[in-house]
C-alpha cells in the first residue's frame, strides 16, 4: 500500500495536481441488479450480481473518462476499488486532464459540477432530479440525528456538528479559495423536498434544500444513477490527503503486536473480508490502476544492490550475477560519467528523457 501511495505521488510530481476527484459507489437499486434477483430476494442476497454489475459500470466509466473524454482530453489516472466494512464496493479515482488551465476555472466549474437540486425544465431535468434526490443528498444527519456516523466524535460526551460540513452555507456564486476545495454555488431557491428523518421511524420529517446536496456531475449522475461525488482538486495540499485516503488499503482491524515477525500471520489476522470483496476477487476483477505506469527506480549504496538468485544456484552463476548486475541507479551514474547531455536532469527525471 505504501508503494502504491509513493507511485501515485510520483504521478503528481510529474503532472502537478490532479484535476478531478471522483468517488463512485454501487447502487443496489440498479435495474440491472433488481431484474436478475430471484423471487423474494434483495441485493444483499446476491453479492455476485452486485460485484458483476458494478464492475461493468466501472469499466464503462473508465471508458467514458479516457476514450470518450467526457471531461476533456485525458492524461492519466490513479484508481482503487474499496469495500469498506459495509460491503458496497466503491471506486476512488484521481483524474489528470490536459485541460486544467482552460476548464477548471471559475467560469467553467458550474457547467459540469453542481451542488444544487436540479431544475425540472425538461425530461432530462426531471430524470436528473429523481436521481439526485435519491442518491446525492447527505441525509444521515438531518434533523440533528446524533446517531449518524458523521456526527460521532471520539469522545461521546462532545456534541459535534457534521464532519462533512452539512448543511453547507447558501452561496450565490462558486468560489475557489487559495488552498482547498472550491465552494460550489448553492443558491437560495424554492426547490426542496421532504424526507423522513432517519431513525425517527417516520414520525419526523425534514426539508432538504440545496445546502444538503453533495457536489455531483450532472452528466455522470444521469448516466449511472448512483452516488457519484465529483470534486475539483483544489490544491496540492488536498492531494496528499486524498492519496492517503484512496490508498489506505484493504480493510484492517487493530491487531496486537507479537514478538514474532510473521508477515503471513499478520496479514491473515488483520483481514476483514465481506461477500462483495470475496466475489470481486474470485472473479479476478481489477482492484486498482495507474496510468501512465510508474517504474520503481532503485536506490542503494555502492556495492549493496539487491540481486535475486535461487538457493540451489551454482556459486559461479551467482558471482556472474553479482558482477553483471546493473541497477537503474548505476546506469544513471555511468551514463552521466560518459556523456554530458543528461546532467541537467535529476535521477527521477532521467528516465523520461533517456529510456
Amino acid at each position, binding site marked *: 500500500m505504501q508503494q502504491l501511495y509513493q507511485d501515485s505521488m510520483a504521478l503528481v510530481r510529474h503532472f502537478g495536481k490532479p484535476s478531478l476527484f471522483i468517488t463512485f459507489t454501487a447502487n443496489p437499486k440498479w435495474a*440491472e441488479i433488481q*431484474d436478475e434477483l430471484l423471487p423474494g430476494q434483495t441485493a*444483499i442476497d446476491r453479492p*455476485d450480481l452486485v460485484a458483476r454489475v458494478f464492475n461493468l459500470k466501472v469499466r464503462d466509466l473508465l471508458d467514458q473518462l479516457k476514450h470518450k473524454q467526457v*471531461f476533456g482530453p485525458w492524461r492519466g489516472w490513479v484508481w482503487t476499488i474499496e469495500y469498506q466494512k459495509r460491503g458496497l464496493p466503491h471506486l476512488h479515482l484521481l483524474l489528470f486532464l490536459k485541460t486544467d488551465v482552460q476548464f477548471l476555472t471559475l467560469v467553467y466549474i458550474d457547467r459540469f459540477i453542481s451542488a444544487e437540486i436540479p431544475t425540472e425544465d425538461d425530461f432530462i431535468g426531471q430524470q436528473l432530479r429523481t436521481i439526485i434526490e435519491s442518491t446525492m443528498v447527505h441525509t444521515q444527519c438531518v434533523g440533528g440525528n446524533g446517531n449518524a456516523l458523521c456526527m460521532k466524535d471520539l469522545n461521546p460526551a462532545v456534541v459535534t456538528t457534521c464532519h462533512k460540513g452539512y448543511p453547507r452555507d447558501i452561496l450565490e456564486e462558486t468560489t475557489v479559495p487559495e488552498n482547498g476545495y472550491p465552494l460550489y454555488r448553492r443558491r437560495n431557491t424554492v426547490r426542496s423536498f421532504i424526507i423522513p428523518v432517519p431513525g425517527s421511524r417516520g414520525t419526523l420529517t425534514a426539508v432538504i434544500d440545496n445546502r444538503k446536496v453533495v457536489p455531483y456531475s450532472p452528466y455522470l449522475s444521469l448516466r449511472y*444513477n448512483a452516488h457519484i461525488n465529483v470534486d475539483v482538486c483544489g490544491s496540492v495540499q488536498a492531494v496528499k490527503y486524498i492519496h492517503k485516503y484512496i490508498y489506505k488499503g484493504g480493510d484492517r482491524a487493530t491487531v496486537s503486536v507479537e514478538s514474532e515477525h510473521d508477515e503471513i500471520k499478520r496479514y491473515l489476522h488483520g483481514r476483514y473480508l465481506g461477500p462483495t470483496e470475496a466475489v470481486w476477487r474470485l472473479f479476478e476483477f481489477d482492484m486498482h490502476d495507474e496510468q501512465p505506469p510508474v517504474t520503481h527506480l532503485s536506490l542503494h549504496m555502492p*556495492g549493496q544492490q539487491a540481486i535475486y538468485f535461487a538457493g540451489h544456484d551454482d556459486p559461479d552463476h551467482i558471482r556472474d550475477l553479482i558482477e553483471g548486475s546493473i541497477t537503474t541507479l548505476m546506469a544513471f551514474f555511468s551514463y552521466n560519467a560518459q556523456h554530458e547531455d543528461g546532467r541537467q536532469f535529476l535521477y527521477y527525471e532521467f528516465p523520461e528523457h533517456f529510456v
Partner: protein
Amino acid sequence: MVGQANIPVPTAFIEHRREWTAHKLGHMDLICSACHALHWQAERPQNRTRAKAGTFQACCKHGDVIVERMRALPEPLNTLMTGQDSQSRLFRQHIRRWNTLFAFTSISCNANARTGTTGQGLQLFQIHGAIYHQKGPLVPPGGRDALFSQIYLYNPVEAAQARYARAPTLDVTIIESLTRMLQQVCSYIQLYLTVRERFAQLSEQEPDLRIILNPELSLIVESGADMRRETLPTANEVALILPGEYGRGGFRDIVLAERVNGEVPDNGLTIINSNHASYLPLHYVLLFPYGEPGWHWARTLENQDGNRQNLRMSQRTFFRFRMHTRTDEPATLMRSQRLFQQLVVDAWAACDQNKLNWLRTNQAKLICTMVLLMYCNKAM
C-alpha cells in the same frame, strides 16, 4: 478557451445536456454456448473469434472448465429453498442456523460484530481473520451431548430430537422432515455408519486404530503398530474415487475415528483442510445434500486449443464456475441468502489461505539476499 480554437466542449458540460443518456446493461440474457451460464452483453469477450463462438471467460474459460452440475434438491428442501410461502421465507431468513443444525463440521471464524441483526446498514456475513472448518470425534467423549456429525449416528427419530434440543426455536416438523430426507439422500451418513461399524469391530483386537477419509474420498483403515492400511469398500456415492495424486497419508486426510493405545483420545475438534473434496459438502449440507464433492487438487481443465501449459483447475476457477446462474442447473447456491454470503467468503478465504500456505512453505525459494560487495564493483 473552451469551444474556441481547437478544444471542443467536453460532453459532460451542460451545453451537451440534450445528448446525455443513461447507461444500461440490459438483461442478463446471453447464454454461454459452452456451459449455459447467463451473462450480460457487456461481458462478451473483446476477441472476435471468441465472441463469435458465444463462450465466456469468467464462467468456464470458454468451455475448458467442466464441473458436474448441481442436482435438483430433494423435497422438502426444494420447496423450502424456492417457495414464497411464509414458512419457506422464514427458513431462508434463518438458513445459517438451519445449516449449522445439519452440518457435519462446524465453522470457526471471527464473524464481524456487524453481522448481527442490530445496527444500521446492510447485514452482511463478514469475517475478520482466518476461517476454519472443524470436526469432532466420531462418538462424543464422556457423556457429552452429541454434536454435528455425531447426531447422524442416531436413528432418524432420535436424531431429530437431539437437533430439536439444540434449537428449540426452530420448527420441529421441518427438523424431522429434513432429517428423514438427509437419511435417504446424503451419502456421508452411510459413510459415517460404515466407519462406526468397522471401528467397533476392530476396536476389540487393535489398540492402535485410525479411520480416515483421504482426499481421494476413499475410506482407509490404519491399524496395528505398523499402521497397516486397508481400503474400506464403500458402496455409496461418496466413494467416487478420485485419481490418487497424494502420497500415503497426509495432512489433508480427515480423521474420522481414532484409537491410540486402546484409548479414544479426547482430542476435541480437528481442523479440516480446505483442499479436501469434502470441505464443502460436510459443512454446506443444505446446499450439497447429496454430498457433491467440492474442489480438490485432482480437478483438471480441458485443453481445447492445446495452448494450456498447466491443466490444473484452480480453486478460484472452480468457485467462479459455481457462482454463475445457468439455464441447465438449479440456482441452489444463489437462493441461499446469508448462507451464500458465507459460502463466497469461505471460498475466497480458502483460496487466499491456500496461496498463503504456499508462501509459508516455500520461504526458502523466495528468500532474496542483499549482497554486500566488499570492493567497489566493476559496473560503476
